């Protein structure tokens, strides 16, 4: 019973943490310097990871689908399937999970370390809102950067798929792109890309909460980092189910 109460208490605290951060984002003054710094840290420095992962996944996906589709004589469907899979689901989800792994751990560990080393207390002593400066900027940066990284992931995966297909069947780039975008509609591209903002909110909120609230020395740093990644990833996958349903609700044509 007490565990259940602790669980709901945790949910309530995290939710309030997130709402407070969102509200704080719209309350001036905004810490632009820290925000742009987080953009660079979360976005720019994650870009190699996203591009490499997207390209590799594109190659692997193309190879796997080819093996299956060839049995039905439907090799021409490979670009279509590739784009449909990455634009709809794989691109946003994999991007969010990768960012959760890289950035979530960094946020959780970084903030916990600042708490342990009393850097946050020092900031507070200067009458600066540490929450707004350290947490809000990270959460907003995650919300802003995730869709952009998703776009990179989508196109990197298409590039990987084309690379694989061209090596196998010498398909031209024009035909590959025409086939890839033949069945994709805006509803397959814009809502899934924008839903990663929610993933960014989850990553920023969860990791910010664990980092900002943990004050238990080096073990706390470790636990905060681990919890940030695990819970962020879990929530991303669970929330993705809800978001897909929401998209189908607003774009019924996309529901198969």
């Amino acid at each position, binding site marked *: 019973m007490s565990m259940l109460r602790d669980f709901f208490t945790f949910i309530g605290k995290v939710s309030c943490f997130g709402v407070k951060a969102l509200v704080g984002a719209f309350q001036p003054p905004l810490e632009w310097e820290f925000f742009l710094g987080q*953009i*660079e840290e979360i976005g*720019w420095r994650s870009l190699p990871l996203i591009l490499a992962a997207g390209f590799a996944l594109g190659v692997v996906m193309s190879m796997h689908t080819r093996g299956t589709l060839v049995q039905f004589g439907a090799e021409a469907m490979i670009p279509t399937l590739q784009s449909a899979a990455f634009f709809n689901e794989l691109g946003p989800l994999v991007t969010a999970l990768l960012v959760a792994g890289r950035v979530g751990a960094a946020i959780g560990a970084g903030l916990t370390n600042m708490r342990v080393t009393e850097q946050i207390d020092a900031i507070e002593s200067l009458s600066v809102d540490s929450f707004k400066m350290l947490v809000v900027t990270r959460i907003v940066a995650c919300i802003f950067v995730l869709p952009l990284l998703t776009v990179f992931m989508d196109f990197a995966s298409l590039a990987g798929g084309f690379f694989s297909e061209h090596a196998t069947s010498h398909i031209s780039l024009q035909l590959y792109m025409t086939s890839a975008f033949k069945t994709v509609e805006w509803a397959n591209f814009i809502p899934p890309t924008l839903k990663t903002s929610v993933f960014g909110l989850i990553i920023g909120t969860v990791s910010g909460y664990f980092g900002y609230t943990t004050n238990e020395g080096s073990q706390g740093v470790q636990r905060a980092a681990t919890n940030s990644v695990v819970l962020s990833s879990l929530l991303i996958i669970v929330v993705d189910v809800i978001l897909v349903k929401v998209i189908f609700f607003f774009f019924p*044509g996309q529901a198969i």
Partner: protein
Amino acid sequence: MKINYAAIGVFVLSAVVLFSVGLFLIGNSHEAFSRHVDFFTELTNTNGISPGSKVKVSGFSAGQVSAIQIPDRPSGKFRLKLHVDDKLHKLVREDSFVTVESDGLVGDKFLLIHDGTDQAQQAPRGATLRGQEPIELSAVIAKMTGVMDQANVTIGDIRTKADGTLDAISATVNNANGIVDGIRSGKGTVGMLLTDQQTSNSVKAAVGNAQQATANLDQVFVQAKQVMTDFQSRDLSQKAEDTLNNAKDASRNLDQTSRQLNVALNEALGPDRAGDNAAENIRESLANVNLATANMAEDTEALKHEFFFRGFFKKRGFYSLQELTPDQYRSNSYFESQRSQRAWLNATDAFATDAKGNEVLSPAGEQQIDQLIGTIKNSVIDQPIIVEGYSNQALAADEMVASRSRSILVAHYLEEHFHLSARNIGLMPLNATAPASSGKSSWDGACVVLLAKVK
């Protein structure tokens, strides 16, 4: 904290550009940025077509179904709004029609606008194109059911007819059965053969004779075999083969010779440069020779009568014995004045009739001629001789024929027996009347007259 603004700028701008590219690529594939024209069509059944379904013009992706208006009563039709690329407007004519098609066996449904004819006007914007209802599977099944019912009826008819045929076959078999029964009971020839003892005995006797004949034949075969064995043991077959080989060689040589002869004859008789063969050449040459000799005869004849030559002939008394006519012979003084030696051949003694009924010179006649020639001996070689033929038959024509025939018979005998030249023998058929100088008024038979030689 130092911020790398350039990195942030590149990151954000690249993402925005890529996002825009994605939007445009998707938009282009759905003609989102091209000009469009709207058409309408009406269908009783949408067959799974929904807003957003593809619209193709003659198979080319042209747009999508932008709206579907639901009918207000069951008998009404769905009104579909087709959002078509303006580039393909030219293909959509007033007689174009719309069908619901399926993109492959399991593919999406789409609307296909069939292009119209060149003669028809271009369909104006907002035109309602004729919708052609797809063939329903249930309709196909209903039709198939009808066909199967009909097939069922047909099979029933066939069965009825087959039953009748089977009855007829059964009756035929029964009849055949009756015939066999009749045969068994001795009816008819076959039955008699089976049941009558006498007939059976006769057949048995015939078979016994046949067996005897076969045994005889067998014996003959044995003997023939023995002969053949004997023939083989004496190596006669080898000899016969040798003989045959010799005959073959001989025939081969003969064949070769005949071939050579044939070649020689072909070469000899073959066509000359002008293309004429030997026979034609010879015939032509003979004709020429004939003509030449005729001319020459005329010339020589003319020469005989020329001044320088005629003295010889006048002295001799005649020009040519062959051309001497009976009248000239009678009237010519030379012949009249000649005291020539004569041998009179009597028709009854000197002439006879052979088996075929022709008159021939008899041995007595020949002997008489031989005696005459014997008097002058070798000088007969260039002796001019006149053979006078006589006949005293009733008809003048018969007289002439018979007298000439007798003179010819005697002349031939002289030519053949004494090898005299025909040039020196003159034929003179004188009918029955002899020349006055001969000392006889008439005669029946022949007379050989030896004329005096020219000195």
